[in-house]
């Protein structure tokens, strides 16, 4: 009983159709089994979620950047 390691003479590649144990080597099951419809649905929900988080820029950030606009003083010319 040899382990399959022995590199003695390997001529026939082990990919006969009836060799079932070749299959689990790669399992891209998670890599793209979704239909376009499902992808679209997820995309929709994702955008709805994200859009729900988008708000106008809070003042603190506007102020922050404006302040740096004016090198002299505190830039309170509003």
């Amino acid at each position: 009983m040899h382990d399959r390691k022995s590199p003695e003479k390997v001529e026939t590649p082990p990919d006969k159709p009836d060799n079932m144990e070749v299959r689990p080597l790669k399992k891209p099951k998670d890599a793209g089994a979704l239909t376009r419809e499902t992808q679209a649905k997820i995309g929709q929900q994702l955008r709805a979620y994200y859009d729900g988080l988008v708000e106008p820029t809070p003042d603190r950030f506007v102020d922050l950047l404006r302040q740096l606009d004016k090198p002299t003083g505190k830039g309170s010319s509003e």
Partner: protein
Amino acid sequence: MNTIDPALRDTMLGAVPSLRAFAISLCGNVDRADDLVQETLLRALANIDSFQPGTNMSAWLFTILRNLFRSEYRKRRREVEDSDGSYAETLKSQPEQTGHVEFEEFRKALEHLPQDQREALILVGASGFSYEEAAEICGCAVGTIKSRVNRARTRLAQLLSIESLNDFGPDVTTRAVLAGNDR
């Protein structure tokens, strides 16, 4: 020395809403997200010279924010996870969602995704970046982003039971089609 080209400043400001949404989706807390955005802007201003005019300001800011979040996340890891409650409360002006339940469900499902997958999915699927841009933001290969996005979608589909998965084998054609399909 703190002057900034007004055009650049406006571009930065224009990027804030989406940047902030990204931050909220990363840390699940509006206050922390705002701190993160603020730090990002300060960091950006301090390094404005390293920004190359003509390149994507948004992507640049997202990169900074993501890196900040990553390093902060590593530090805070233990004390965090104040998830659901505070998040819902701090999210004040959320627009009326037609399906609020669906929205909540989606948010929770999103939280279940590994960080890598979540950010990839959001960048590509919501923030409007290309796979290439997302790869740059995350500092990884384009193929990595693609597979993260795919895994994220698949996981979300499971979590939301949108569809029971077909048990596809290693079908190269299908994968190629899907990979080339969006954007």
